[in-house]
């Protein structure tokens, strides 16, 4: 097995035994005849030599041939072909043949990155979407995924609202329950860790500078993603960064932004609050105070941000480089939150050894510093009694004496600190060698590392409220994880044009090996000897505790792919990947992931060409693929012993003994597999002035890696992670792009794009033996241990699990201080309202996601807008359910109420009422940008000045803070949405 990959490559190398001794060379550049520059992705065919190639990004190509006389043809859809005849190549001679292509139709896409290679948009057989730089969102963009929000059908990007906040993407719905649902991110060919990676900051993708990104490709179906095998089950996001240019360019850009909160929770004002306390909690009137304080307002701020980008690129002969630097400082709209970043990137490429060796290196380094609002501040600001002052008359912070009362949020902001610093370097080198004498055969070796070192420091002085309440005596905690992921990949590819069959053949095969190491020292020190050093130092503490943990994992793979294009219109792709992961036991560590796809370029059929239709492009495609998913934790198949910590010791006679606990495992844990099918239709009308795609897909996931209850007595805990159950997703996606107005150089142009996607998710099986199984998930605030969601067969994953309200004569839900039996439907008719009457009811995933982008140009002005809409997504308004009842005024300290209580009249909490599961459908003007560009004046290549408003308005019936509320749809004092105004300019020399 060990030498399987060697064999694969050897086989690749020997595919065409070198009977020919190619010693000559034809090279050249293909440009567009309208002067718009080089054309990439052009098929170069040499008649008589049965060889060919494809032009590179800069339009250049090189072919190796025997001495002789040839005709070189250049072919690209959307262009009239061109050819150079009588090209005479001598022994060891290099002949230049430049070609020019005339545009005959608007271009349909360009090169599409696929795993381990690239393809032509024209020849693509599976479902992928590319977003180029020109289509990226602008404004305040802290992390890269925000560049494509609302741009790609079938992709839901969930923003945490925090600057640089956590990332979450769902491509075509959630396919797993306990394994990850996040896609694989691949940066310039290197897969990177996003979930569970080492970071002391927020979003692990923050190390990337959005200004460095050239394009983002989303591989959506199983066929496209399966070349990434084990980690492709949730789709793959390929990020390609900008490379050097032949001519020297210096660009500088900067933006300044100002953000403010768009909406907060609706709470009682101080007068209403005092009246409510007097009526419903008269015993607490003494705790009221006489101030009028808006604590939410006091923890919010108008947040400033600044961003600088400098890039220098250039080249000589075949060498290219690009060096970029980025500085970002972005405050959050809640006090205490700031994200800062310094990032540098160097991209270098060259062609050596007679242009046979293509060498490429990407070196990236960044330092991110994140300041966090101390935990609980947002919740306390929402809950704190508005009749109390921030400070007492003596200048100290007001606090309630009872420790169950919320803490004064402004005291926490002033006293606690929580910050993290992350250094990360993601670098790789790649060498592609074109094997001599066998035209079209190349070998590529790619090696990279992803190193991160982070530290997160939390400090609470002994005078803080939490320390006073618990008698902890202050706390200094620091977590310093570091991780190193290394990868090495090697693959060979062979490209051949079979002119007689009008066919292209491409074979790729290789292997990869990745190793993940993570070590995490941390310490927590209580009973500080002094508060004076803050988070700057720790001279001594009464109770220091140290921890250290090492995690290691490995992943090895072999893969192969064949692309075959027959008659230039029947396209086939087949691939297989074998993955072996250390997260499974020896018997199950490897999985096979095959895929196949086919496409038919109907437009190229003569019967269609002869008809007089407005069609300028028509392609049908179908793909099938299996991809895998591994558990998110290591060693889940192996019974280990967990050593207990110092606070969970057992008193054993007169001694305290640290314990050991055997873990509950399924030693037969194996790969989760997702089988997907995709039908696609691509069309172009009126010379591709209108283009579009329609897709239908199904994804069926079997052998879910699922933490399920097991029968008492059978294992060492009550839940075990095993392979059980099935999930299905299916949906349709539409995308249409049109040049609505084409006013040429001096008129209006208007490009519009609309995309829409629908996904239907269903958990189809948990345990075949018991159909009625219900697993509660989705913890909420309000009462300890309450879950609002459920996993049950026949419903979408994480459906809300609620009582259905009875309806009054007016059709509205019955509310008020009534017994449960008057409020809720007794589903099982047993005369009691209890857990058995809660039913699955809607879920957080949108039924439809709709995006619209318009770009309007008039002379040197450009205006673009992006609109996003979700339909049929539901959010559980946990602020309303938790604080929407008068009972919250009682107990140790009255807390402020959500205004919904004035409508519902609830005295007791009704956490499980369906009235809190709100329809959060919305339309949002995500982005509105106005720009002005001037080219070529006083030494300046181009200057663009622009202004952007993000989140200009949101229209929704949802009553809480944000209708996009998190991946699980539980709105519990989440970071608020901001409206951001940005101005900036980019200048190029």
């Amino acid at each position: 097995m060990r030498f399987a990959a060697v064999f694969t490559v050897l086989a690749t190398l020997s595919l065409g035994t070198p009977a020919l001794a190619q010693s000559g060379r034809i090279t050249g550049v293909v440009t567009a005849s309208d002067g718009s520059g080089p054309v990439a992705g052009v098929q170069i065919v040499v008649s008589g030599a049965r060889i060919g190639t494809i032009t590179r990004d800069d339009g250049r190509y090189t072919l190796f041939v025997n001495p002789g006389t040839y005709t070189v043809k250049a072919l690209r859809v959307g262009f009239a072909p061109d050819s150079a005849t009588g090209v005479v190549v001598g022994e060891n001679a290099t002949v230049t043949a430049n070609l020019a292509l005339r545009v005959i139709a608007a271009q349909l896409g360009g090169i599409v990155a696929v795993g381990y290679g690239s393809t032509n948009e024209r020849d693509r057989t599976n479902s992928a979407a590319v977003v180029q730089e020109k289509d990226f969102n602008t404004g305040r963009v802290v992390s890269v995924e925000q560049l494509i929000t609302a741009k790609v059908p079938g992709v839901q990007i969930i923003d945490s609202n925090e600057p640089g906040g956590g990332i979450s993407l769902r491509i075509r719905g959630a396919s797993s329950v306990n394994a990850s649902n996040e896609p694989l991110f691949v940066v310039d060919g290197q897969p990177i860790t996003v979930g569970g990676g080492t970071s002391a900051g927020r979003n692990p993708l923050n190390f990337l500078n959005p200004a460095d990104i050239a394009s983002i490709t989303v591989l959506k179906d199983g066929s496209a993603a399966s070349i990434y095998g084990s980690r492709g089950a949730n789709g793959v996001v390929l990020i390609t960064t900008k490379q050097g240019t032949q001519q020297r360019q210096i660009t500088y850009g900067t933006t300044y932004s100002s953000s403010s909160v768009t909406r907060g929770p609706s709470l009682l004002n101080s007068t209403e609050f005092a009246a409510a306390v007097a009526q419903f909690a008269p015993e607490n009137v003494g705790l009221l105070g006489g101030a009028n304080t808006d604590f939410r307002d006091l923890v919010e701020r108008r947040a400033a941000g600044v961003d600088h980008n400098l890039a220098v690129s250039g080249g000589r002969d075949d060498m290219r480089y690009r060096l970029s630097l980025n500085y970002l400082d972005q405050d959050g709209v809640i006090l205490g939150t700031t994200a800062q970043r310094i990032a540098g990137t160097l991209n270098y490429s060259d062609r050596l050894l007679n242009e046979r060796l293509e060498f490429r290196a990407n070196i990236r380094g960044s330092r991110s510093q994140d300041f966090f609002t101390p935990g609980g501040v947002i919740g306390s600001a929402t809950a704190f009694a508005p009749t109390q002052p921030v400070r007492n008359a003596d200048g100290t912070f007001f606090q309630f004496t009872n420790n169950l009362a919320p803490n004064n949020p402004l005291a926490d902001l002033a006293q606690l600190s929580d910050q993290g610093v992350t250094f990360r370097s993601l670098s790789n080198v790649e060498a592609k060698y074109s094997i001599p004498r066998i035209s079209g055969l190349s070998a590529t070796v790619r090696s990279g590392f992803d190193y991160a070192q982070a530290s997160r420091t939390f400090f609470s002085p002994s005078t803080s409220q939490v320390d006073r309440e618990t008698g902890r005596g202050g706390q200094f905690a620091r977590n310093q994880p570091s991780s190193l992921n290394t990868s090495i990949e090697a693959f060979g590819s062979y490209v051949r044009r079979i002119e007689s069959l009008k066919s292209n053949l491409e074979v790729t095969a290789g292997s990869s090996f990745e190793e993940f190491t993570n070590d995490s020292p941390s310490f927590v020190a209580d009973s500080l000897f002094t508060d004076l050093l803050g988070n700057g130092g720790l001279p001594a503490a009464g109770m220091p505790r140290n921890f250290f943990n090492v995690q290691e994992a490995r992943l090895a793979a072999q893969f192969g792919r064949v692309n075959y294009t027959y008659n230039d219109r029947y396209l086939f792709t087949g691939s297989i990947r074998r993955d072996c992961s250390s997260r499974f036991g020896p018997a199950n560590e490897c999985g096979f992931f095959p895929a196949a796809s086919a496409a038919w370029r109907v437009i190229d059929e003569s019967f269609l060409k002869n008809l007089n239709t407005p069609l300028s492009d028509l392609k049908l495609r179908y793909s099938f693929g299996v991809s895998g998913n591994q558990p998110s934790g290591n060693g889940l198949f192996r019974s280990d012993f967990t050593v207990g910590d110092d606070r969970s010791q057992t008193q054993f006679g007169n001694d305290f003994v640290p314990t050991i606990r055997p873990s509950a495992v399924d030693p037969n844990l194996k790969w989760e597999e997702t089988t997907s099918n995709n039908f696609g239709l691509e069309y172009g009308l009126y010379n591709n002035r209108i283009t579009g795609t329609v897709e239908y897909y199904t994804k069926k996931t079997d052998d879910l890696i699922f933490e399920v209850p097991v029968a008492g007595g059978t294992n060492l805990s009550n839940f075990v992670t095993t392979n059980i159950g099935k999930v299905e997703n299916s949906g349709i996606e539409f995308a249409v792009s049109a040049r609505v107005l084409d006013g040429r150089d001096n008129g209006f142009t208007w490009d519009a794009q609309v995309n829409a996607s629908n996904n239907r998710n269903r958990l189809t099986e948990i345990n075949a033996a018991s159909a009625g199984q219900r697993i509660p998930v989705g913890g909420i605030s309000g009462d300890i241990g309450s879950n609002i969601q459920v996993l049950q067969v026949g419903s979408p994953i994480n459906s809300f699990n609620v009582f259905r309200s009875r309806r009054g004569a007016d059709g509205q839900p019955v509310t008020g201080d009534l017994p449960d039996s008057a409020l809720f439907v007794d589903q099982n008719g047993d005369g009691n309202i209890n857990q058995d009457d809660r039913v699955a009811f809607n879920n957080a995933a949108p039924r439809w996601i709709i995006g619209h982008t318009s770009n309007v140009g008039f002379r040197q002005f450009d205006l673009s807008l992006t609109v996003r809409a979700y339909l049929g997504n539901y959010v559980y308004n946990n602020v309303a359910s938790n604080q929407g009842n008068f009972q919250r005024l009682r107990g140790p300290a009255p807390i402020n109420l959500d205004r919904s209580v004035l409508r519902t009249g609830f005295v007791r909490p009704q956490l499980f009422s369906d009235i809190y599961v709100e329809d959060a459908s919305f339309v949002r003007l995500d982005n509105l940008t106005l720009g002005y560009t001037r080219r070529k004046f006083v030494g300046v290549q181009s200057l663009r000045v622009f202004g952007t408003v993000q989140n200009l308005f949101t229209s929704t019936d949802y009553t809480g803070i944000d209708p996009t509320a998190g991946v699980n749809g539980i709105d519990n004092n989440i970071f608020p949405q901001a409206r951001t105004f940005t101005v900036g300019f980019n200048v190029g020399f």
Partner: protein
Amino acid sequence: MTTFTRKTVLAALVLVGGVACTDVAVEPRSTVSSSNIFNEPGSYRAFIAKIYGGLQTTGSAGPTGNSDIRTNDEGFSHYVRLVWQMQELPTDEAGIAWNDDGVQQLNTQLWTSSNPFLTSMYFRVFFQVTLANEFLRETSDARLAQRRVTGALATEIQRFRAEARYLRALSYWHGLDLFGDIPLVTEANELGRTPPQQASREEVFAYVVSELIAIRSALPPAGTGGTGRADQGAVAMLLAKLYLNAEVYTGTARYTEARTEAERVIAGAYSIDPNFRRIFSADNHTSPEIIFSVPQDGLRTQSFGGTTFLTHAAVGGSMNAADFGLDGGWFGLRLKPQILALYPGGGGPASPDRRSAFFFFPGQTTTMANITDFSSGIPAPKYTNVTSTGTPGASLQFADTDYPMFRLADAFLMYAETVTRGAGGSRATALGYINTLRQRAYGNTSGNITDAQLTTNFILDERARELLWEGHRRTDLVRYNRFTTAGLWAWKGNVLAGRVTESFRNLYPLPAAELAANPNLTQNTGY
């Protein structure tokens, strides 16, 4: 090929060969694998400590963070906290104010099979059972011989094995008492996916009795086991409880055996603590009365269950938390009003029965008009995190107070009950035991009863007074047939005045999660 190209091809192949490594196996470095854990002799002790720890804590990180079982809340899933709530909340002794999912059903007896508390309890029982089974497998003669364990360690391991079997028997007792017919899984059943068969309550009873008798001689004499460890006193106490309730468990009364076992306990190295309050205080490990306790420690044995729960939850309203060695009250537990009538003068500081001296009246109402309002009902902060001399525990958050699962007064009461039920023994001795307890309660002989007053029904009331909030009440009421179809108290059946409930509620239902995972099980009648 030129030398140059040959070299480059070779170089490429070497690189590719490097990649071709497919050995992905990784040995864990921060956990210990089962293959080498017992290379360290201390592991046996650490493992038996974990089985005891299953009663003391909720996981491998204190107070929470690495739970033993997955439940809706780790703090809620504490073994003692669950047993206590299931034994006390549905009775006349206690009510809780909170609204946490399912907890009000414990107040009213109207639970369902998906109640998270009874679900957690069931899985706590079986966590203990499987842990003990695993310990017994790992310490079998064959395994020990394989690892060449001899000498003092081998001797010590034999005691550990008896303790593991004791802890398994204890949990099986809780299981059969609360749930009835449950699976009987022993070390003979290998771990795996095959769900076990259901055993009858009688079978589990017989197994537990036989186990306890079998291990008795392998344990130290009564009262010499050390804090928190099982000895012959704990064995006799558990056997006494099994036999006392044998009619409920098996249909056949075994009062004589119950009396014999109670006598064995009383003969042990225990004595009635002259200071009643010390039994529930932060220094109760020094009390001579405790037979088997679940130790707690504010710094080293932390959880949100056990006495941390019992101390905090009973404090609220206008009580001063610092008086109880606490950082604050949790505004939860109060007495249901019917229990007050058992104490002369309705209990409280003015009552001559000082076992109610700590009942807290200011700002509270005696009726429990609103069970979810802490001020409705009288709190009874029996457990406190200060020592008998008034020093607070080491932590205000986590109690130092051990949970006294079995104590001598209970053995006295069991002896007396078996005597009144005609199991032989001496009425005079029984009367002496009862009056010993009452003299401690009254501070003198004014509360003593006469032989005529010593009836079976009197014992039930006396158990309520003496063992209030000690986790025995439901079992006692079921034994006296007053838990469901007879007996009225606030919120029973979810009405303030109380109403009778169906007899099937003498047992809890098997959890819905367990029925879904184990198709071999039949749900208890009525559910």
